[in-house]
């Protein structure tokens, strides 16, 4: 598993749930929800899709550890 593969999957899932987002709008170190204007329901759906793909469940208390593309990728890399 490489970090690039995980990042690609995160981006794919963001675009699936928020198709209005342009791929170039996804900044690696920006807060995903805030910068792309996703609500918490969208964010939950992204994490659900990631869980299905990588079998890694992010508990609610860890959400602040996955709030940017970079942080989320690292979180999954450590656990996948």
């Amino acid at each position, binding site marked *: 598993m490489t970090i690039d593969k995980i990042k690609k999957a995160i981006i794919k899932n963001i675009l*699936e749930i*928020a*198709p*209005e987002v342009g791929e170039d709008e996804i900044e690696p170190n920006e*807060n995903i*929800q*805030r910068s792309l*204007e*996703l*609500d*918490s*329901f*969208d964010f*939950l*759906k992204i994490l659900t899709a990631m869980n299905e793909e990588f079998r890694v469940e992010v*508990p*609610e*208390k860890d*959400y*602040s550890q996955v709030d940017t593309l970079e942080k989320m990728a690292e979180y999954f890399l450590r656990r996948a």
Partner: protein
Amino acid sequence: MRENLIEKNVDEFLLRPNLLDYEGECREFRWEDVGREFEGLPGGGLNIAHEAIDRHANGALSDKTALLWLGQNGERKTYTFGEMKKESAKFANVLKRLHLAKGERVFTLSSRIPQLYASAMGIFKNQNVLCPLFSQFGPEPILQRMLKGDAKLLLTTKKLYEKKVRPILHELLDLRYVLLLDADEDENEKTLSYSRLMSEASENFEILPTDPEDMSILHFTSGTTGTPKGVAHVHKAIYAHYMTGKYALDLHPQDNYWCTADPGWVTGTSYGIITPWLHGVTNIVDEAEFDAARWYKTLQDEKVSVWYTAPTAIRRLMRIDSEPTLEYDLSNLRLIQSVGEPLNPEAVLWGEKKLKLPIHDNWWQTETGAIMIANLISQTIRPGSMGRPLPGIVAGIVHVDDEGVLSEVTEPNKEGDLALKVGWPSMFRGYLHNEEKYEKSFVDGWYLSGDLAYKDEAGYFWFVGRADDIIKTSGHMVGPFEVESALMEHPAVAEAGVIGKPDQIIGQLVKAFVSLKTNYEPSDELRRELIGFARKKLGVAVAPKEIEFQENLPKTRSGKIMRRLLKAREMGLPEGDTSTLEE
């Protein structure tokens, strides 16, 4: 049901509640007496900003923290009542300098930043009307509301302006100014720098005599048909804010109070701005969105004592398998109230078990302006019930027959329309530019809420459902018509029907059923395109989360899409009366 009751032992409380004897207080209560809690303007009349800020700033509370603000990047700032008086005076002077006349509407579109709170008070001081927009609206809902509310000035940020307002600016012909909160310089003669104007404004402002019946706030609420309605409130609503702050929120001077609602919705203005300040209480505002660890830490670090939050957040906290009271010091917390949608009994009981405090549900609407029915700190909770009417409020279950004749349902546990006897001070005074619709909301001196409910033998009210198709998602209302109209603007869409689909976390999610024009085929790609299209137009707070293609949508013989049937089918429920269904 009875074994579920949560009884209270007032002797164990940290503070003696303001209301101990519910029946006695209801019997003795008179609205006129609330007026004695206010000072009134020196020149006459009643103005929210004077009662919430200036009278405290002029007295012993001048140096007390009015606003404790937590920024999303970890900043922490405090503002005293004295400082809030000056900042709001400056903004009132800005509005005056820009020749905003009494009654003219000032819209706000911003995240929860301190300037928004001071500006709200400045708007009241200059006798303008505050019209808050939710920052997660897209351009379409913003345009609808600004046109309907005759927006004269918009206060927003550069980013929100670029993304959501510039594309619709050419349609806002009556809009005179846009003030950009984070711009250092004016963009042109119409788009001005807030900070430049504020730096030139005086810290003194004399509030002109304000009639208690003058319009103060205009919120928008969704309907089943047509575009959202502007719900007009007046300065006198503070009578109800003060009363509910005393009884439902049990505010005491030493409280640290945190309301998690955004001022884009009525809870965020009535209880996120006005009510704590009427009581001279420190108001905590967090700019960031929900994050479980952050929220628990805020409750602990800021020694929150009264917390007003929403079922969506509570249900997310419930997903964590932890013992919050062991991980965090929540010993200052003494009251939790919740509003937005009915709180399920499990959530009430979870609070008691995990937070060592039950969660109190309450009920009200944009139209009612303030909490009407509530579970109270000193009273027994019936989990799943919204509680009992507050002192001064008369609520009932009524039935209106086909002839328009109203009768009260007196038999306990019998379902009907939840209604309120007119006369409470925060009752809305009109739907802006829609007198007919306003009149229709009242029958025989009762306001009909549109919610179905029943009253049990102990006088507690229980929510049953909406009488119409309005969707309640994450605690706010979405009108299906608004969503359907946006979808219909896409070239592939022939028809759209929008419903609320039950969801464990957010109550209901917005789901759209779509039939396509000939030459278009359903595909995942088209579904994504439509979702993106709607999200761009409507914003994430309103747009559908799910879209399902159907060849034909069920319609009445007159061609109206039967949302009720779509919903019944979605939920696998009986279809009910289908006699009007088109064959």
